[in-house]
């Protein structure tokens, strides 16, 4: 309770309190627009090349839907955690902001572990980056998404550490908000990956 009254002089929406904060959010939306173009081209090349497996394993033979379902659930839950962090930021509850961001990082790591396990399994099945056009476009698309998850995990982990030193201010507020936007975007991209790559691969 004492920590709460200590920060009561702060504005309710930290991320929109300063012009710099508002500009940061607008700039981040422009960045996400560019990211849409990046993933759009990767999706287009995957869709065009996914039939060319050069005698290697096909999408239908490779993919295991139970692992994909688990990965989807993990990433979706971590996206909820990051929105909870923004909610607690609006309530000026530093401890809970750091807790939910740390939970986001942990679930992001779990997602990465599953993806690495999956890729290692595929390589043993003869599905390597250079084995076919299908494999190259698959690893490019899913790998780019995975590297975005890795970047997000490092970013949010550093943010949790910085929040421990600096606390909630009009400077750290926009950082939390923008990191949460990034994480939601990663989850939205995954929605299309599990639909276009995995589910469509199983349909044939």
């Amino acid at each position: 309770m004492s920590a709460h009254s200590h920060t009561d002089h702060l504005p309710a929406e930290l991320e929109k309190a300063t012009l710099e904060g508002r500009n940061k959010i607008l700039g981040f939306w422009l960045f996400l627009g560019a990211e849409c173009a990046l993933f759009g081209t990767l999706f287009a090349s995957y869709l065009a090349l996914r039939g060319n497996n050069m005698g290697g394993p096909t999408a239908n033979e490779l993919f295991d839907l139970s692992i994909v379902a688990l990965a989807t659930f993990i990433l979706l839950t971590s996206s909820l955690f990051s929105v909870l962090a923004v909610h607690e930021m609006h309530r000026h509850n530093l401890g809970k902001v750091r807790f939910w961001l740390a939970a986001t990082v942990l679930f992001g790591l779990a997602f990465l572990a599953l993806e690495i396990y999956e890729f290692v399994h595929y390589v043993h099945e003869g599905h390597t980056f250079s084995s076919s056009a299908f494999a190259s476009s698959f690893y490019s698309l899913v790998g780019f998404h995975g590297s975005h998850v890795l970047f997000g995990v490092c970013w949010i982990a550093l943010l949790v550490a910085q929040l421990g030193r600096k606390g909630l201010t009009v400077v750290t507020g926009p950082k939390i908000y923008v990191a949460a936007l990034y994480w939601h975007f990663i989850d939205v991209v995954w929605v299309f990956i599990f639909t276009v790559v995995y589910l469509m691969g199983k349909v044939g």
Partner: protein
Amino acid sequence: MVHNETSSQKIKRAPVHEGMKNHYITFALSIILTALAFFAVMNSDLGSGFVYFFIVILAFVQAILQILFWMHMKDRGHLYAQVTFVVAALVLLPIMVTALFWIWW
């Protein structure tokens, strides 16, 4: 003065608290939509043409839900973001579709 400030802050914060219910509803709907998509693919009785169409629609519905509620796009003050997003979609989708048809045929 001081009392005035705290009461005005409480008024500002009120809608933020209500927003939490929407976030949980978005989460539940996302899980239901995902489960429906997986179920449609695992159910071999449905035609593959229908399943393709169905799961793509489900993906777009889930994406729009998350963009509106989790990425706060439905909140006020998001005009620039909304315009950017709609223009990006209108420009990108035709380019992607054209490129795909060009490669296939």
